[in-house]
């Protein structure tokens, strides 16, 4: 068992990026489902929440594509992403509507979790001197930009939550 928090190989990096793709998929599905679950009349009242969820779903889709590009460039074993998509969809197809506070809190957890994931991953890549097939600076620059998006997301949800208090 390794007790080092670092990424040592192409394979490990690819796997972590794939986990990032699935995380984004989960986040995207949750945000989309929450958005769908809001009643028409509530949407009119809560335009900022609606915009937040819409943006979050779009942002996750964008992040997912960026991560997939990195994974493809690493020439790693492919994983059945169609199955993952179906699985995630099946889970969240059953999600029941929640109130706004629940939706916002869940979105906050989404953004914070994603931030933590990318932050740990960046640290782990920094801690390693392994040579990857992909240019390290390119990987770090993509991951840093995504992490910064997540940090902004946390701030945005917090701002809306505070405004509602």
């Amino acid at each position, binding site marked *: *068992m*390794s*007790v*080092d*928090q*670092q*990424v*040592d190989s192409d394979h*490990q990096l690819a*796997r*972590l990026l*794939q*986990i990032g793709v*699935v*995380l984004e998929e*989960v*986040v995207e599905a949750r945000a989309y489902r929450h958005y769908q679950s809001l009643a028409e009349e509530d949407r009119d009242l809560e335009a900022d929440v609606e915009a937040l969820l819409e943006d979050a779903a779009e942002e996750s889709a964008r992040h997912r594509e960026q991560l997939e590009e990195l994974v493809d460039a690493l020439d790693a074993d492919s*994983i*059945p992403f169609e199955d*993952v998509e179906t*699985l*995630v969809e099946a*889970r969240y197809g059953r999600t029941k509507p929640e109130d706004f506070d629940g939706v916002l809190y869940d979105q906050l*957890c*989404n953004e*914070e*979790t994603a931030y*933590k*994931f990318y932050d*740990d*991953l960046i640290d*782990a890549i920094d801690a390693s001197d392994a040579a990857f097939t992909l240019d390290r600076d390119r990987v770090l620059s993509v991951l840093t930009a995504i992490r910064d998006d997540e940090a902004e997301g946390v701030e945005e949800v917090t701002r809306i939550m505070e405004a509602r208090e």
Partner: protein
Amino acid sequence: MNTANQYLKAIYLVQRMDDGPAATGRVADSLDVSPASANEMIGKLEERGLAEHEKYKGVTLTDDGIARAESALQTYCIIERFLANVLGVEEFRDEAKELEPVIDETVAERLDTIIDREDQCPDCFDAEADACCYLAGTCEEASD
């Protein structure tokens, strides 16, 4: 998962397998670190009230240590299950070990939302098989 949590998990599993205090050498072996490193970390865990070390006997987790170890084991189970059931990774044990230090508990909780895990997790973890007994197919043996 941080290093302290990995040690807590290792001590917890050795204690469970040996049904008593965990010998430092056994903990070091299971983590593939030197006994000196294990000793050092066990000392830190002791200072933090997570473990008690008795000379010539070994280390025993405190209630706080057990709670943290169970949480760490649960995170590990989630990673294994996620790799095996969602990503279809055959070598899920080896990969889970590699990924464990980099995957935080909160991240594992999100991954957990798309896997089917038993309510009794992490009690169903089979230390000998290094996997949940449902994943390793050893549940009957584990309950004997």
